[in-house]
């Protein structure tokens, strides 16, 4: 048990290393292309904000890149808008970012074999609980009737 705590900690630390390196990488290229901070088209802006809320800031705890004030989040917002300006769809942009940073960047975990349990667990508990409740009620009412 103790070891796994260390492992988790070490992994978190390791994760931070590339994350901090990213802004350096972007510093040279990102501002070369003129992309506005906000899109003039309200529909595009709404789309951008919605997309930004779905993406996690990799260096912050639990904040989306829409909320975060870290430089990395700023660069990622810029990247999202750049790709949107280039006509990419939301899905394409998400795929691109996942390919680059892994599933970790998605606020909503994808439904895949290793997350089935995650998505189903609450409902399994609900169904199991309902089943137990049904049995309890059945037994209790048999006693009183």
């Amino acid at each position, binding site marked *: *048990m*103790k070891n*796994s*705590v*260390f*492992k*988790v*900690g070490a*992994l*978190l630390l390791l*994760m931070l290393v590339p994350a901090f390196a990213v802004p350096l990488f972007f510093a040279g290229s990102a501002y070369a292309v003129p992309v506005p*901070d*906000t899109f003039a088209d309200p529909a595009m802006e709404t789309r951008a904000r919605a997309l930004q809320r*779905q993406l*996690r800031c990799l260096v912050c*705890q*639990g*904040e*989306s890149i829409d*909320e975060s*004030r870290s430089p990395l989040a700023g660069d990622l917002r810029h990247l999202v808008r750049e790709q949107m300006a280039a006509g990419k769809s939301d899905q394409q942009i998400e795929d691109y970012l996942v390919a680059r940073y*892994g*599933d*970790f*960047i*998605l*606020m*909503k*975990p*994808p439904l895949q074999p*290793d*997350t089935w*349990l*995650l*998505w189903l*667990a*609450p*409902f399994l*508990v*609900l169904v199991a*609980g*309902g089943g*137990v*409740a049904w049995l*309890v*009620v*059945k*037994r*209790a*009412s*048999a*006693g*009183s*009737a």
Partner: protein
Amino acid sequence: MCFALALSLVMAASGLMGARATAATARAVANGSALGMLVFTVLAFGVLTYAFVISDFSVALVAEHSSILKPMVYKISGVWGNHEGSMLLWVLVLALYSGLVAVLQRGGARLTSAALGIQGLLAAAFFLFIIFTSNPFLRLDPIPFSGAGLTPLLQDPGLALHPPMLYIGYVGLSASFAYAAAAMMVGEEGWARAARPFMLIAWIALTCGIALGSWWAYYELGWGGFWGWDPVENASLMPWLVATALLHSALATERTGAFRTWTLLLAIAGFSMSLIGTFLVRSGVLSSVHAFASDPTRGFFIMVLIALAIGGALALFAWRAPSLQGGASFAPVSRDTTLLLNNVFLVAACACVFVGTLYPLVLDAVSGTKISVGPPYFALTFAPIFFALLLLVPLGPRLAWKQGDLKQALRTLYPAMGLAGIAALAVLAIASPRTVAGTAAFAVAGWLIGASVLDVRKRQGKGKARARAAAFAAAVAHAGLGVCLMGVAGTTIWRSEALEVLSPGQLMTVGPYTLRFDGVTRVEGPNYTADRAHVALMDGDKVKAVMAPEHRFYPAEGQDLTDTAIRTTGLRDLYLALGDDRGGGKYTMRAYVSPLAPLIWIGGLIMALGGMLSLWGRLRLRSSEPLAQGVPAE
């Protein structure tokens, strides 16, 4: 100081030994040592507080977490704004509860004594933990001239109160845990009733603590949100969900003797959630603003403690529970059934938060795959489960124990349905965009509040004073849920926001408001310097009000912080946060308009008020008046 510590260890040991036996002398020792433990813990805590107040930097903890520059309030709140001090606060609260258990002597003498024994065990474990891994009184030599200060995020009145509140809640669950374990040991009935005031105190404190925390996050973190499904927030929500389930299930156990074993299990689960919450926050497994401790030994220690407490309790449960069998009988349509459903939904909701919080950690540890479980997950799992629960809430109080009449219950609820319909229509008429979720949320809020009003009216002047007080308290708490739901829906669905780079004199609009940016000046605070923006709220050409969001820099701590400006009408918040300096007098500015945001916390307070009313009713009307409302026994 070390003297106080040594004595507290002795106290813990005697508390541990004193309460096990059933002989009268042993009981007296247990009571005495509980009070003694309280005295010495207060002493230890007082000494630490004094060290913080006078800024005694020879104490390492003070040097690391305080500074002379801080205002007095934050010197004091700095006591628990760090790992060691907060653990001392934890045992202080535990000692307070033990003292209360010893003084009130609720339930039989054997039950109380056994409960004190369990509390003594817990206290001893935590004292050991403090002394071996997190001694708050370690000295420094040479003595530094100034302290490192407290994280500025934590220098805030809301947050000065938040940890004590949460701890009163967390640790309060230890009292019901102790009573449950005691009941299993001595096989005594009536523990649910004896432990109820403690459950209520814990629940009220948790409700307040969570509301405070969320309010703090709202105005301090500068992103306009009130709940981020942050693991640490989840850690406090889980005990709340279980405590809520426990309150309801214990009600049934107390009244009709139903769900005995289940209530015991919930009491165990409630405290386990508290421990897990503490573990998550303190161990550094999850790092966030709360995790001032990132020391694996501490995490390991808490983990062992959790394993022992939960394992021990569950073993006891498995051993003794069968002998406590004999649930009461009730019809499928009855209040008992609704309470059971309440529990099913609450436990499922808790499971959802639990899985959502821990799954990423487990998956990472097992396969190295990193995923994020963010708000969208909870919106898809937690929200519908909780929503279904809320739909059922008004039915419970309308059905009699054991055998209810669903048709009649629904008939008496017609006005509440009417209110729900009106609320839904009003939302459709006023709000834009029109959303299904928003309309449904308001309909349910109307349903909850309407039913609560009906409950209060129906009870007026009828029935026994005590039952009336209980029903009134429940109605208030349920109405609070409805109010809170409106706030959550309003803020989540209809929030409008704007983010712009402004130069002085420039206008920006957000929602119905027009704002004029009038530049930034530098101001000096007691222990920080701030860039204060001057933003005029315009009404045509006239300035209606001036708002001043700040960006603060704390030199002692070397950190900076956004201080938001919020203007509220009670029904709508205008929320400003000053962003980065873009040079040339230009700044980024974030503005949010959050409709109904204040209702979230008002609702939370109403819920807590309901809890307090219930507690007050119980303590004041603590007569021998029987609780059963003329329901015939089987």
